[in-house]
């Protein structure tokens, strides 16, 4: 038998591999979105892509509580954490990728010294335009040592925005080179003005009951239901709970810091690949504890541009557009105040 048919088969398959490589590694896909204001103050928007994808435009009232210019993700290989360094590096890299996909403000990884410097700098000028994302499950002692004088507490009082995932917030802090984590009781009082049991204690739980503000989560296609370190939101004053609830613990809560202007956002699970797009969606949509959804539009854009128009609704502050379902392939938050000005 002649070898040529099999040779041709092999050559064709190698050609398939090369085409696949090009589609996988060349910048083939382009996605973008834009908005403008019509003369009658209606909001116009466009979504452009060379894919065929579903899009959603969500009009939010996010108030004017926070203006974030940069997102700092804490990681310092010198300080122990609840996960290995390689695991955390992987999840942080993934989260950054998800944030950038959504046109986030500048993202930087900061070590224990840098995070302290950034926090102290904002406190000193009393200007809070930084969000911090903690995925290590433990604070470095440069910003938190269990006392009310910890820099992170002062920063939250002033107006800092802290996103936290993994372990009860404030339960652990650690010094450089420590072998074990320092446990501190009383974190509930420090961070939420109540007892420690406001935070679930780590038993792996998947909640099934939608929380009060699930509509906000659904608008963003977020369905986050892990309550291992969830928060008992019923004991908070100003909050939205956009995930699910189990045994009184909410999986995803955005709450005002109890004794100041800052905000704490608690994700009830651990840093993971699954959590990364959800973290990014919450952060990039500029949600806060006062947010509400005013209007949602959905549509399909097939290798071209979809154009939409939304009535000017009182209180609207942000239009968040995201493309792709179930996974987001592009997203952008538009600050209507900035566009109007």
């Amino acid at each position, binding site marked *: 038998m002649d070898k*040529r048919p099999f040779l041709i088969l092999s050559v064709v398959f190698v050609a*398939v*591999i090369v085409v696949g490589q090009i589609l996988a590694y060349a910048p083939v896909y382009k996605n973008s979105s834009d908005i403008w204001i019509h003369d009658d103050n209606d909001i116009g928007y466009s979504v452009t*892509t*060379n894919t065929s994808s579903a899009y959603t435009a969500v009009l939010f009232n996010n108030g004017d509580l926070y203006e974030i210019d940069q997102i700092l993700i804490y990681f310092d290989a010198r300080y122990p954490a609840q996960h290995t360094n390689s695991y955390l590096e992987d999840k942080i890299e993934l989260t950054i990728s998800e944030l950038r996909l959504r046109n986030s403000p500048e993202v930087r990884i900061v070590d224990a010294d840098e995070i302290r410097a950034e926090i102290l700098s904002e406190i000193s000028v009393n200007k809070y335009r930084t969000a911090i994302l903690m995925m290590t499950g433990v604070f470095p002692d440069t910003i938190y040592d269990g006392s009310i004088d910890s820099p992170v507490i002062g920063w939250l009082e002033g107006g800092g925005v802290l996103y936290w995932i993994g372990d009860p917030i404030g339960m652990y802090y650690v010094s450089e080179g420590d072998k074990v984590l320092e446990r501190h009781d009383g974190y509930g009082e420090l961070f939420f003005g109540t007892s420690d049991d406001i935070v679930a204690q780590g038993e792996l739980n998947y909640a*099934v009951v939608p929380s009060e503000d699930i509509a906000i989560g659904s608008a963003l296609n977020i369905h986050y*239901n892990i309550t291992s370190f969830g928060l008992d939101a019923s004991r908070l004053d100003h909050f939205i709970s956009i995930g699910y609830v189990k045994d009184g613990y909410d999986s995803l809560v955005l709450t005002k810091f109890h004794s100041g202007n800052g905000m704490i956002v608690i994700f009830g699970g651990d840093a993971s*690949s699954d959590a990364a797009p959800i973290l990014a969606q919450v952060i990039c949509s500029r949600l806060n504890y006062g947010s509400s959804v005013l209007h949602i539009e959905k549509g399909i854009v097939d290798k071209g541009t979809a154009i939409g128009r939304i009535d000017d609704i009182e209180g609207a502050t942000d239009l968040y557009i995201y493309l*792709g379902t179930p996974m987001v392939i592009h997203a952008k938050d538009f600050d209507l105040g900035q566009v109007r000005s």
Partner: protein
Amino acid sequence: MEEAITHREVWKNLARDMTLPLMSILLVGLAIRVVLIPLFSFDYDLSFWIATGQGLEGGRDIYETSYYWYTPIWGYILSISTGFGNLLGLSVPGELFTELITSTGAATIMNTTVTTISANVLYKMPLMIVDIVTAWVLYSIVKHMTNDTNKATIAFGLWFLCPLVIWSSSVACMFDSLSALFALVGFFFLIKGEYILSGPAFIIAVSSKFFPICLLFVILAYILSKHKDEIRTGLKNIGKFLSSGLAMLLVIYLPVILTGNLSRSFEFFYSRSESVSGSSLDIITMLRDISYNQILQFAPILVLVLILIGIWMYRSDAKSRDQNLIISIVMSFTVMFIWPPTPTYPVVMIPFLALAITVCCRKDLYWSWLLFSVIMTVAALSIFNLQLLYSIAAYTDLLDLGYLVETVRANEGLFMVLERAFRYLEFLPGISVVYFLYRHRKKNRIVSGGATSG
């Protein structure tokens, strides 16, 4: 004489060979696939494929989203499927369904996504093509080795109508058949002495699914065995096989290496190794917590057995060498799959079982084929159970998703018992191969012993 047949003649022969049985097998196999592909899907694995595709649409590479952690070949095919999806206007490959959260407490995005029927078709279509091509390659090889159209037709059917193969490509959307195809092509080039072509084919097989790596000793032994009297030629041919294979490996991995994702492409291997690292070698404990990853705990024994099979291969004489290669390959795969594997893994072995049955006349192995086909498929069914119907329920009016999810939840215990039972039954196919090969060898010894004494 065979060399004189041109590729045109191969096609002509195939057209001539399109007898009623062959046509019937082809049509029945296609009909089954056409029904299964859109309607029955395991959304969990498919969700990873669509998420990888959407990662590409977002300007990221196949590993960047962390939804893909296999060797890259299937990722490249996913990128082409995704491109086709866009050309065809597939805008929604899947959706999150809250029923899966509120009823089962499923947590991850993958567990709560139900893929659309269009996406099921899109991502399974390349595998259906692979199934057809593999059947044709198998047919051609058997025809080449036996010059018997009936045997070639049987081999075609043993692949194309194998429930496990159909399950793997048309329901589970797993790419084991791709590995089987190129293991088979590599085998053909090997017996033809085309080492420069065999190496790359073998590497494509290994880069699709890792299992054909177990054939390395057998292949090297086969090449050396062919040149027992001229060891330098044998070593030169091994050099050709390995260097061409390495060149192919470089072609496949170049973008992965350049983007620094080489380690991620082996994550499937690390994660499985880690899961059994430091585990007990106590057989009772292992049987109680049975999983395929445990096979890594037997790695030294496996390597030793594979080397012994290679030595047996090397000792073959010219007359039986090609047939012994088939038997050696079947034995090597049996070593890999005798410990209960994930159901689709043995797909790569099915063409070689078909070769053993038809070319080597090991008809007893029909039973092994049947055991692999039935036990593995039913084991997979018990794992996937009614979840296979989620796509129909979510995107048609034929079933109610909420009811289905509740039913799955209510019967979780039953499905787990079934899964466990079939997990133990998965020992049988591999054991049957060993038994039938041993029995055949024993019979042959008695016959040859009898002939000598007679």
